[in-house]
């Protein structure tokens, strides 16, 4: 399969990329890792006149901490997250997430942020969004008027639609450095490697001094037109001693917040039930990592 014709552009600076984006407007798309976008173009589900490859702009691939935040460059490959010592030791929920995206070959190209990538694509079946929601992440959008910060909670507007303006590029993802006694986990049920989730859950927990839950984040993948933040379940968990009964109830409330579509991966009832189970299991794992058990 061959995409319909388009013009490829490879700007070497962000300024050039933004200028191209402004010039071509709606007829242009940003190409990042290309692992979502190129298949769409090959299948001709999407057409584009201009592809603007941001992969040759230096300085967009990095993972480091500064000013109390983990900073991930928009073009950072998923495989770089998997191989990062910082991610492995301090952000295991991000390792959980990166290592179940597509397959290892795709992860060598796919990027965390880019428009063809995992966040800016706005696909509720992608894995990072739920994790970024529970971590309270924010993204940096760079446009002709400079940069602005968008909390991930406000980023996913609708199916395949994000808060990015047409003339903006997602250039950075920022995650707060976790507080003491914090832990998170991402669990995904997939039929096989490379498939989208039948159900998946991200849970992040910070414990207070008395061992109760001081802060809880619960997110669901592929459970509606946008990634779901299970606010009610988070509220239920907050302030409680996280014993088994409480974690089960949090799972039940979160599962009820899922509104998945039935497909070959399962019925609505099955997916809700799996979301429930995964939330409870991910909460246990998050608790272990927070040092709560």
């Amino acid at each position, binding site marked *: *399969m*061959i*995409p*319909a*014709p*388009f*013009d*490829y552009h*490879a700007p070497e600076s962000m300024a050039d990329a933004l200028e191209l984006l402004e010039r071509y407007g709606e007829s242009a798309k940003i190409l990042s890792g*290309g*692992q979502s976008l*190129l*298949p769409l*173009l*090959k*299948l001709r589900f999407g057409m584009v006149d201009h*592809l603007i*490859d941001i*992969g040759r702009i230096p300085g967009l691939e990095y993972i480091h901490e500064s000013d109390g935040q983990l900073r991930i460059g928009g073009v950072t490959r998923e*495989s770089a997250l998997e191989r990062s010592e910082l991610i492995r030791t301090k952000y295991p929920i991000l390792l959980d997430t990166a290592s179940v995206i*597509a*397959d*290892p*070959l*795709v992860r*060598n*190209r796919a990027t965390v942020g880019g428009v063809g990538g995992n966040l800016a694509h706005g696909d509720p079946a992608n894995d990072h969004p739920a994790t970024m929601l529970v971590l309270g992440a924010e993204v940096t959008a760079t446009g002709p008027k400079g940069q602005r910060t968008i909390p991930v909670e406000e980023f996913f507007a609708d199916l395949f639609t994000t808060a990015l303006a047409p003339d903006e590029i997602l250039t950075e993802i920022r995650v707060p450095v976790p507080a003491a006694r914090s832990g998170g986990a991402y669990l995904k049920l997939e039929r096989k*490697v*490379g498939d989208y989730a039948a159900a998946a859950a991200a849970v992040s927990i910070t414990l207070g001094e008395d061992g109760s839950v001081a802060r809880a984040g619960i997110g669901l993948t592929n459970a509606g037109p946008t990634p779901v933040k299970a606010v009610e379940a988070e509220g239920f968990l907050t302030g409680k001693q996280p014993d088994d009964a409480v974690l089960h109830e949090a799972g039940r409330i979160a599962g009820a917040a899922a509104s998945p579509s039935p497909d070959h991966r399962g019925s609505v009832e099955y997916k809700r039930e799996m979301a429930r189970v995964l939330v409870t299991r991910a909460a246990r794992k998050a608790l272990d990592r927070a040092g709560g058990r």
Partner: protein
Amino acid sequence: MAQHRIRVAVNGTVREAEVESRLLLVHLLRDVLRLTGTHIGCDTTHCGACTVLLDGEAVKSCTVLAVQADGRDVMTVEGLEQNGNLHPIQEGFMEEHGLQCGYCTPGMMMTGYALLNRHAKPTEKEIREAISGNLCRCTGYVNIVKAVQHAAHKMA
């Protein structure tokens, strides 16, 4: 539509080509450079038959534009053999009977090669994870895993 003059180092030799923006890397290799060892299987980023190394990383060449490889290094299955000597990964597939129809084999070998470059002594689990983006529909994976282990042993 735009044409691009590109230079790609393929198996150590710089090759030049005039390509359309939309030309896929796998078509550059097979149709323009006539390196047909790289196979096209599913053509939908699933099967890994088209796996090549791009700057040392195993990637699916059906999901990379040829123009994205401009100025970069590409290694295909043809680059494994050196001066008539098979690479240990090739010997492994032969010795351990790591193939039946052979369609997935070039991709499997390139993924195995990339794994061993990064990780000289992978466990069976690590090998299975590494090849999880490469599908084999006839041998199954037992002998493929053995083939990669054979190469790891040989290269140690």
